[in-house]
């Protein structure tokens, strides 16, 4: 709302006030007019294009030649999509990746922020180091970590260096030599337990469990984004007044209690923001996995982002790619829309 100053109205002569009012009404139009190009661009390139993609996801377009006739029955592409084992695997991988990634990035970020909150010598240096990966591209991160988690080198050399494998050999146990991103294993499978209650689950081709290859990818992602969480938490810690801390310490609270009962609860709004932002990043993850492990053995590290890319640009099955992209969008929207709505209310 434009603020009109009452002092101004008294000083101005009626004639100039009228002139100004005219100009003001013109400028009331000028503001939306100047905003229009950006707003229109976003409405076309975001909302219009999403609508178009949704339309493609309902169509018969599955070759190089566009075919926008609606596929019968309505929404059949989605049925096929969710019926595909590969896409089911992608959804499973996204859930597993999100859980591991959030756990590591949020707890790691919070832990680092609390350590730096002690204003120890060199805090500035440490903070810069922890945030540094955020300035790199997902591709660079993926390339570097693909070598570190290459079973023939990297981390496994460090494991060897600890001497663990010599001890294991002494007990005639095979060496600890994880396959990391090359490991197709899916552990803690729930198919059998579920089948005990719900027999059709025994027929599922999807192995409902934890694909081990997804864990190194989550580590790389947490490496890159925990600094962001740390920066957010540090900004939050900076707003907690000294008095709060002193009051708690006068009450004789230990450091542990101070953080657990006072500071971390005060950081709740920040934690929610960090969770929302990182979850949405996780649902969209593409470049990092693409560069680090690709689809992985038996789709062990495949994610919807890669699925969409391959469907559109490799297989030219546009309707499948579009449908999977819409599924990604719905997932992101579930997380982001309430956040934006809350933001709008506070404006």
């Amino acid at each position, binding site marked *: 709302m434009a603020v009109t100053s009452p002092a101004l109205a008294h000083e101005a002569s009626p004639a100039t006030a009228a002139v100004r009012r005219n100009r003001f009404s013109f*400028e009331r139009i000028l503001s939306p007019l100047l905003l229009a190009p950006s707003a229109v661009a976003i409405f076309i390139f975001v909302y219009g294009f999403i609508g178009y993609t949704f339309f493609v996801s309902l169509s018969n377009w599955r070759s190089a030649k566009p075919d926008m006739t609606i596929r019968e029955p309505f929404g059949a592409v989605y049925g096929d999509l969710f019926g595909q084992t590969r896409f089911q695997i992608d959804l499973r991988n996204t859930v597993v990746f999100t859980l591991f990634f959030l756990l590591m990035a949020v707890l790691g970020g919070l832990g680092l922020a609390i350590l730096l909150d002690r204003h120890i010598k060199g805090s500035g240096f440490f903070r810069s180091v922890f945030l540094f990966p955020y300035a790199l591209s997902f591709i660079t991160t993926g390339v570097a970590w693909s070598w570190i988690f290459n079973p023939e080198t990297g981390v496994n050399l460090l494991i060897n260096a600890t001497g663990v494998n010599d001890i294991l050999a002494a007990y005639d146990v095979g060496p600890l030599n994880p396959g990391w991103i090359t490991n197709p294993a899916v552990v803690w499978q729930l198919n059998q337990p579920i089948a005990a209650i719900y027999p059709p689950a025994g027929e599922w081709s999807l192995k409902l469990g934890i694909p081990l290859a997804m864990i190194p990818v989550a580590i790389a992602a947490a490496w890159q984004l925990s600094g962001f969480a740390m920066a957010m938490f540090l900004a939050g810690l900076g707003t907690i007044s000294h008095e709060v801390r002193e009051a708690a310490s006068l009450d004789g609270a230990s450091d542990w209690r*101070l953080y657990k009962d006072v500071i971390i609860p005060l950081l709740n709004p920040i934690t929610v923001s960090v969770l929302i932002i990182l979850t949405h990043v996780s649902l969209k993850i593409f470049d990092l996995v693409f560069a680090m492990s690709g689809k992985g053995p038996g789709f062990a590290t495949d994610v919807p982002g890669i699925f969409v890319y391959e469907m559109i640009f490799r297989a030219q099955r546009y309707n499948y790619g579009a449908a999977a992209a819409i599924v990604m969008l719905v997932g992101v929207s579930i997380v*982001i829309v309430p956040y934006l709505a809350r933001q709008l209310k506070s404006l």
Partner: protein
Amino acid sequence: MATLLASATPTYSPRKKSRAGRVVVFTLLVAATLFYLAPVYVMVINGLKDKSYMTLSGMWNLPLYLNGGGFPMAWDVLNPNIWASLRMVIPATILSSLLGAVNGYLLSKWKFRGSDVIFTLILFGMFIPYQAILIPLIRTLDWVGIYGSWKGLVMVHVIYGIPITSLIFRNYFTNVPSELVEAARIDGAGLIQTFFQIMLPLSLPAFVVVGIFQFTNIWNDFLFGVTVVFNPADQPVTVALNNLNGTNSVDWTVVMAAAVLSALPTALVYIFLGRYFIRGLLAGSMKG
């Protein structure tokens, strides 16, 4: 500082940081530093090695001698793409910053009915997975005649940069006292004059923050680079690096060196202008 205060006020004793406590904190920070620097170490060290003595089992060892290792070869392979990235990133960053400045000014100082709703709708654009707009985007670029060219990529980055740049500038201008705009009005300055005479000269810090943030974002982009541009020599450096990593014929000292080269511009920006970088990142999370 804290310990100084504590000794000055002996009547009450705030948390005295014990020596042991500080050693633990410091040790944890050093351990974390090793973890955060390990991939950087691997890239730099192996990029510097000569392929004749590079072995998988010696990944963590330092190079025996310094002769540039994989860097000269990496530069040969990558330099067209580094230039392609620069040619695209610089205009895209400038244009999207200017657009953001205008939008941020209007959305903070010239609000109108529904402007907050429009702002929120614009903001949603920065969260969407871009996969959901790729098909119509490419058809549109093709129709306009800029599909495959760096100009198309500039346009894409400018448009999808509108939400974040508008957000950062809006937050910045909101904190500029409205009295300044009022005073300009009394002097007869309109919306446009106020922008150029009052707001623009004040907004240098915001331009630095947005410029750095957008430079980093656009430089690091991969999805638009790989889908909008198809001529290998015109593709941004992230795409070239990814292709290189997938090629078995290339020695991996070259891949490591290429990873370092492709990260260098944003890494340097971060090292020298990190302060502004953090501000952009916090503003981008909307709690600015």
